[in-house]
């Protein structure tokens, strides 16, 4: 198609619908789109500025590749950009989420927040209760509207058959709406999906090893096939799945094992937008698994921006989502466990339980590294922390790490989950410490050893 013609047919109608602030989401990593879009914009609205946000670092979880944000106020956007870059230590990098948030907040807060001045009251003015007591209270909150919520969740049961039908014809189910959908989906899976083997992934956890999930799926499928047609399978498939590559495992899930193109496995993912799955690699992997011929997928999202995780290929070809709005208003009990309580002192501190869950999901070597650090901290309670090179030496002596790079990768993991923090020693050296009390640390070490 001619370029100008394309601009006319695709972008102008789009642009005509714009008002003020424009955000074009998830345009794929296609270089011509960049040029087309910006030229289309400059033809139509010369003062518009197209700001291209580069890919962000691995920690800022959001969204794929390049994205484009266009705003009519050149000066405003420049100001916002400058603000962001100054914050990021002068680096010319800003995430789309940041920019979107800033722009959105700027315009909308301007309208909605006109009433009253900003209050300057401090949180400390509230008479906060002790953290332990608070936690105990949180677990004892009396549920409101229990009956109504139960009947609301029950009312979705009539749709179960429809959902099964949609699954059979190749769609993936995506549940959204306020409230924990964990019990609803599990109830659906255990009552209506008895013909399938169901594997549940708890996406709300901090880290999930998707290869392990794929291997577990392959093993279940293997068992199922063995029962169906005991003689039809080749011997080479009997190699254990643990030792195979990810491609192999996915190939097995996608393989033409039975003549009918029938689904045998159902993958249930609670919070596919959860912290452990929010990076694009995980989402791509999940999409590949979801597109396998023997796999169907049921997932839930809670975050309002979750759709930005997927590009068009994933949505249309791989996941093939069929959306279902199923608000339950049930409390996010498990999902919320890993979030710090806002009124707790030092809101970010971890409890022993959450820390041990994170540690158990890590490799044995990483656990041992953590143990070395913990033992050092217990042995030297008065020190400010353990210098990195000391940690490296003692870890290498125990054959836990071979190089500083591996150690650093473990440490990054710890830092991400706030298991370990860094503070400056009095002599200027960076020290590592675990932000837990002595008792808590002792208990944690005990728990890892179990």
């Amino acid at each position, binding site marked *: *198609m001619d370029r100008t013609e394309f601009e006319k047919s695709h972008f102008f109608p*789009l642009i005509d619908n714009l008002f003020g602030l424009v955000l074009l989401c998830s345009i794929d990593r296609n270089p011509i789109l960049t040029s087309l879009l910006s030229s289309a914009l400059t033809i139509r609205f010369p003062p518009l500025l197209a700001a291209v946000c580069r890919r962000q670092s691995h920690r800022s979880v959001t969204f794929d590749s390049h994205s484009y944000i266009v705003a009519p106020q050149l000066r405003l956007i420049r100001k916002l950009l400058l603000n962001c870059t100054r914050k990021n230590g002068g680096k010319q990098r800003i995430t789309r989420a940041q920019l979107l948030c800033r722009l959105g907040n700027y315009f909308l807060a301007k309208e909605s927040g006109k009433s009253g001045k900003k*209050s300057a009251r401090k949180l400390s*003015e509230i008479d906060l209760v002790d953290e332990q007591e608070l936690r*105990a209270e949180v677990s004892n909150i009396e549920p409101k509207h229990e009956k109504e*919520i139960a009947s609301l969740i029950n009312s979705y049961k009539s749709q179960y058959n429809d959902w099964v039908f949609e699954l059979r014809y*190749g769609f993936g189910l995506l549940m959204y709406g306020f409230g924990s959908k964990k019990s609803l989906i599990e109830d659906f899976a255990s009552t209506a999906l008895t013909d399938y083997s169901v594997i549940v992934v708890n996406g709300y956890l901090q880290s999930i090893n998707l290869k392990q999930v794929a291997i577990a799926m392959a093993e279940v499928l293997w068992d199922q096939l063995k029962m169906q047609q005991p003689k039809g399978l080749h011997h080479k498939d009997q190699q254990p799945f643990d030792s195979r590559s990810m491609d192999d495992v996915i190939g097995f899930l996608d393989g033409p094992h039975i003549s009918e193109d029938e689904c045998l496995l159902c993958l249930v993912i609670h919070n596919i937008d959860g912290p452990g799955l929010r990076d694009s690699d995980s989402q791509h992997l999940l999409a590949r698994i979801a597109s396998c011929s023997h796999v169907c997928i049921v997932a839930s999202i809670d975050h309002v921006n979750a759709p930005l995780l997927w590009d068009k290929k994933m949505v*249309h070809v791989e996941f093939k989502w069929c959306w279902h709005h199923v608000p339950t208003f049930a409390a996010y009990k498990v999902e919320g*466990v890993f979030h710090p309580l806002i009124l707790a002192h030092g809101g970010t501190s971890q409890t022993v339980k959450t820390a041990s869950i994170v540690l158990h999901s890590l490799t044995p070597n990483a656990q041992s590294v953590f143990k070395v650090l913990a033992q050092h901290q217990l042995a030297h309670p008065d020190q400010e922390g353990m210098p990195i090179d000391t940690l490296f030496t003692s870890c290498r002596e125990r054959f836990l790490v071979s190089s500083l790079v591996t150690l650093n990768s473990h440490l990054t993991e710890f830092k991400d989950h706030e298991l370990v923090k860094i503070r400056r020693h009095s002599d200027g050296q960076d020290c590592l410490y675990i932000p837990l009390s002595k008792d808590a640390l002792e*208990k944690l070490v005990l728990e890892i050893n179990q």
Partner: protein
Amino acid sequence: MAQSVADDLSLPHISNNDLKPFFVLHKASPRQHPAKKSAGKARRSVKVNLSASLDNNHEPEVLDDQSHENLRTKNFHKAWMTIESTIKECMHNMNADVFNEIDSWVHKSFDSICSNGRPDTNKATCSYPIVTDVTAKQLYTGLVVMNNMEFVDDLQTFADLGVHLNSHGCHVANLSSVDFSPKSGVGGCLRSLSRQILKGSIDAADISILASWYMEKDNFKHPVVVIIEDMDRCSEPVLSDFILMLSEWVIKIPVILIMGVATMLDASKNILSSKTVQHLSLFKFFLGSPADRLDAIIEAVLVKPCSGFLLGHKVAGFIRNCFLKQDGTLTSLIRAVKMAIVQHYLMEPISFTMKGLLDEHTSLADSWPNQALELPSCVRRLSETKSEACLGGPSKMKEVLDLWSCVVLCLHEVGKNHKTTLLDLYYEALDPKLCSMRDSDYLESKPDHQRSSWNHNMNGESVKIHKGDLIGHTIRQIRDLSPVALFKLLEKWNKITDGVNEIHEKVKELQSQEKLENSNLKETAIRSRRQGIRNVGNFDKCTTALNEKAAVVMSHMARDYMQPIESIPFHEIVCFTDVDKLQAGLLGDPRKRIQLDLLGAHTFIKCSCCSTKSGSSPISTMHDTTLMYSLAQEYGDVINLHDWYQSFRGIVGQQTVKDRNRSKVSPSPKKRKTAIEPQKKITEASIQARFCRAVTELQITGLLRMPSKRRPDYVQRVAFGL
């Protein structure tokens, strides 16, 4: 010890499974296992249950009903398969020419590589191929230009190309940009390549293994084709390395590269370094344009009732809007159609009951099922004419539909010259208002210039096609056709209308007139050429007369035979009209819906306490999180935690005050007191706990951001407005 108790307390109702990253909920129930046959049965039985639940307004099912349902499911399955295969066939036909072209080029290139020296075992044992001639390092490369911004639409095309080449005796590997990521490097694509060529037996990134495989058996008689689906998205250094490596080995493994290009033709030069480009000898192929593909698919799937399933006007409008304004991919359009057919089955209990529309040879004695007489479209018609005879059966409906699609296609032939897309035409031809408009001058075939001038006066702008006037406009375009174009048009009409007697005869008539006049014209043309331009006026007059006739015929056709599906009785059985249901399934809008959930919780919870009183203002009985969110609406982009907490506390505390008053007033305070006692214990700690949990829940939905170090007393609101 106190710690451990607290820890245990903090995680109640949480089973072990909840904290595992993943677990197996259950394995497939054994009843599916024993044999293949029973698997099929199990499947069907679920569907029967399903339709039973749908049909709950009817009597409990008898055996007859069950067989009826089985038939219905079978018909649905057949319709689904037909749509899938029709789309596949459509794409296949579109691409057949290019594929054949590519195929012959591949074999030609292979021959020319082999002419430089057929690979032999001696060379293969060398650790590195010795290449003396620089030209021998050339890698034959086909650039397949996709003509399409949206890569998604071409995924299947390249998969098909792989299959096509494979069936013509090539070793094919399909690689995508994922294989060319900087993370996995050149080893990643090589591994993927050898996986596909060696059929997964070896998992190593070593090209010499590939080379020795190529020498085995008859492998060397066929070319190796590597298809890279989306060159534009590949990592440049990895792709360059890959190409350089292949070119070094091209003598041993005659690889032919095919790369999909979405952007410009010179993309290869832009992306790759000049050193790499030197090694490519480029050939170009062009895939069909997306517009053509769109038209072909709409024609095959939607205009011709291939599957006995049709879309209503509003649904077509929604799909059209999605395509034009939102997504722009053919893939999404196809997905929408598939979603529509599934929803139609689920919603309409008597859908797919008739084979009538599906079968080629319908029996004349067919009729609609009895339940269908209660359908609104049927009731309406019955009340109008008071006779059942006029309703007709499925075969009658098929006739009407055939006529309709025939006219739409004829119109499209006209519109093609002016780039009218079939999608627009289709959308307009479905409009049930067309029927009522017929009596007015809507389809009047007045000359176009009269109308356009009228438009001009009304709007003060140049000729613009009014919404809903596309058909009229298209008919008027017939007038402006040149004799040659008209001739071609009539030929095409002739082809389209073949088999539809009513229209075919008229077209035949037109054609014979045309021929007659054509022969006259030729004479006059020759004469006029001799005599200069004196007779040109006469010449024009003849053609316009014929154009006029064609336009009149067309407008008559549109008036008499273009009956939109939604104005036909019983259309509910085959036609899907619920646009809301489709939209909800296709495009979830979590950002809006989750906020609406929070702001209008009582519509879902349906409790007696929150909904009736005081409309939207927050009250203490509300769900904590929704209460907090409605309080948050009063703030700007940041919320002061202290203030927020205080107002939350104030509202939650209200109840206790009220209750205290009530208990004072009530005649039997003691009874009351005991009843209320457990509720009343709203301690500071419990309020704080509820506040914390509500904040956490809002954080999970992404509507709040936690306090930063710089602003420890504020949380940030993320979403504003719906």
